[in-house]
Structure formats: C-alpha cells, structure tokens
C-alpha cells in the first residue's frame, strides 16, 4: 500500500531549490490542491518543468506569480504575463522547448535512454549550442533527458496502491512525469480500493507512485 498523505504533508515534501515537474496543459489536469498548499509554504528557487506556465491566479501559474521559481523549462509562456515580466527583469530564467521535445525528454529519462534524437528545431535557434547527430544523412538535435526531484501530478482515480487513471485531455504530461521523478505525488479526484481498477486499463502502474493525496482530512 502507498502512503496516503494530507495536502499539508504533500506540500512539505517540496523544498527550496528542488526541480519539480507539474502535470497539466494550461492548467488542465494539474494538481490544483497541492499547488494551492505549496504556495502557502512560500518555497523558493524552484526549477519548474511543465508544458507551460499556465495563467496567473491559478495552479502552477501562481508559482511564478509568487516568485517561487528561479527557472522554468516549458514550451509556452504566452498565457502568463508574469512569466514574461520576470524574464525581462532577469528574475526568472526561461528555457523554451518545443512541446514534443519536452515530452520526449521527460519520457527518455523515465525510460533510461541517453538522449532524444529529434528533427524538431533543426534550422532554428533551438539547435544553437546543441550537439547534432547525423543519421542516414539527415540532421537531428541531441536533446538530453529531463528529470525532477518531485513530480506533482493529477489523476481522476487512484487505487490505494497507486494505480492511476486519468480523465480525457487532463491526461497530457501526467503519465510521463510519473516516470521521471525521484518522488511522485499524485492528487487524485477519487481514491478507490485496490481491485476496483481493471489492470488492463490502468494508465500509470502503481510502482511509479510514492504518495497519494485525496482530500484535506
């Protein structure tokens, strides 16, 4: 059985200077409750790996607003003007990565691969300073795997052992982040008994999950 912990306990696992991955796509499918709790703790100098920086006033978008983040590795910042502001004032380092590359970099770490060999970004600024690998006469960028100390993810259902099911487009980066962090904390909309999820349809096997957060009790 995995440890079911409170929101407070979950948020406390995130400490200054950590690298965290947060699931979600413009906030959809992100662990909102854990993030709300985390913001209360006012942790500092985080490196945030996510698809984007969401919107100000919600979920991981507010990590930036509250200046808890020193560096973001994301594919898009256009929906959170605070990210752009802090980037221009040099308070925040912004690393922009093509979305598909970002997804594969996270998957590559989880899968024990040494690099991602992608055509995306060839001929653009994205290739600058990076190693190029030629395969059968075609040029590819060598992108390194991405890992995190903690992944904060969101599932629609978790059994008490940590098997997960996601709902619709809220799945997005959650399953791959579950494989790429030392500690994985899932915020589940519903916690069910072991045996209630059909093994054929589990989306993240329980071995990837360390802690489950249900409600605030």
């Amino acid at each position, binding site marked *: 059985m995995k440890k079911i912990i409170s929101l407070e306990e979950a948020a406390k696992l995130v400490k200054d200077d950590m690298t965290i991955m947060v699931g979600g796509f413009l906030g959809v499918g992100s662990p909102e409750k854990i993030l709300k709790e985390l913001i209360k703790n006012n942790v500092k100098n985080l490196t945030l790996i996510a698809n984007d920086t969401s919107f100000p006033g919600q979920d991981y978008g507010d990590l930036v607003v509250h200046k808890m983040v020193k560096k973001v590795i994301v594919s898009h910042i256009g929906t959170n003007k605070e990210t752009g502001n802090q980037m221009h004032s040099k308070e925040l380092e912004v690393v922009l990565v093509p*979305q598909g590359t*970002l997804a594969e970099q996270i998957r590559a770490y989880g899968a024990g691969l040494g690099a991602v060999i992608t055509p995306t970004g060839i*001929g653009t600024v994205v290739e600058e300073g990076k190693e190029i690998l030629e395969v059968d006469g075609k040029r590819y960028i060598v992108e390194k795997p991405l890992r995190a100390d903690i992944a904060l993810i969101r599932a629609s259902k978790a059994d008490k052992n940590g098997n997960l099911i996601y709902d*619709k*487009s809220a799945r997005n980066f959650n399953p791959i982040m579950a494989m790429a962090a030392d500690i994985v904390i899932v915020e589940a909309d519903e916690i069910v008994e072991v045996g209630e999820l059909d093994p054929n349809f589990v989306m993240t096997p329980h071995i990837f999950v360390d802690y489950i957060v249900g409600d605030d009790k």
Partner: protein
Amino acid sequence: MDKNKVKEIIARRVAKEFKDGQLVNLGIGLPTLVANYISHDIDVTLQSENGFIGMGIAPKEGEEDPNLTNAGALPATIKNSGAFFDSATSFAIIRGGHLDYTVLGALQVDEKGNLANWMIPGKLVPGMGGAMDLVTGAKKVIIAMTHTSRGNVKILEECTLPLTAKSQVDMIVTEMGVMKITDKGIVLIEKNPEFTVEEVQKVTFAKLIISDDMKEMEI
C-alpha cells in the same frame, strides 16, 4: 473587406484541401475556424495536440467539461470515434508523420518555405508550444493568415524573425489568394477576383510566379 469575411474566405479555402480519412491539426486563432467549413461528405479527423483525436464542435454553454479542452484551454468535445492519449503519444503522432495537414498562422513566411510564428525578439516571446513539432512533422503545412498585418508585409524573400522551421511550408492561403511553395519560388495558383495580380504582388515581398492555370478563388 470585412474582417470576418476575410477570415471566412481563408478558412473556407483551406478546408477544401482535405480529403476523406485524413488527420488534421488546426492551430489556435484563425486556423480553428477551418473546422466550420470542412465538407460533410468527407470524414476528416481533427487532432488536438494536448492529447486527443476526433475533436468535435465546441460544447454548448453549461455542457463544458473541465477535463476536456482544446490546445488553447478552451472547452472542447470529442466525437464517439475519438481517442485520448498522453503528450508523448500526441507528439509521436505529430513528429512521426501521421498528420496529413497542420494549419497554422504566421508572423512571416518566405519563398524557401521557411516559417516564423513563435517570437519577436525583445517584444513577444510566447514560446513555440507545439508549433515547431507540427511544422516539422506534418506531411503538409498550410499557412492560413491575412495577407498583411497592420500594413506589415508577411510574405517575404527571407524571414527576418527567428524561424519555427526551415523549408517546411507547402501552401499559403490568404484573403488575396492561394500560393504554393515550390523549388522555383512562390506560385500564385488562385487569386481573389477582387484584387489584381499587381495588387497582390505589391503586398508580397517575394516575387510571385503566376500559375499558367491560375484560378479564381471562391469568395
């Protein structure tokens, strides 16, 4: 021309490119409108890069599902023939060449098929999102945009803004006409009858090659 009419002309024309059974990704903004003009006689599957295929029409008010949104985080629906997947699979579809068309807007596009649509240094840095993968991976890339933007010419000999991808654009559709990117340059294959060739060329900073069988664009 009326702004909405301009958008409609462009979106309607792009939709004509699709064939039965194809998979298409429509970017946010103007390209999204293309969905409204796809013929009901063909079955075209729309991908939403945040993680599904089979995107349907926008939900009615009150029927939005917070867990079902498009790549712009707006409420979406899925057809009963659709399927959800994670982001790695979504971009495997895109990068792996399984997408027949991607339709995107542009800041600049040039006669080599280069595209710039993700940043203006020092000014606008939203990030590339999925655009670089889409333009690199899709079988065909269609740029759907107004011919100029606030008086600025966008179709150039060579892009000056940071590129989204090199030599990947196949076609440009604007309210003035339809252009194909070829080895020889940009060929005007259809023209809006409201404009002369000279008028189109005037707001295009790449030399237009006029197709021998140039057609009138439906407006």
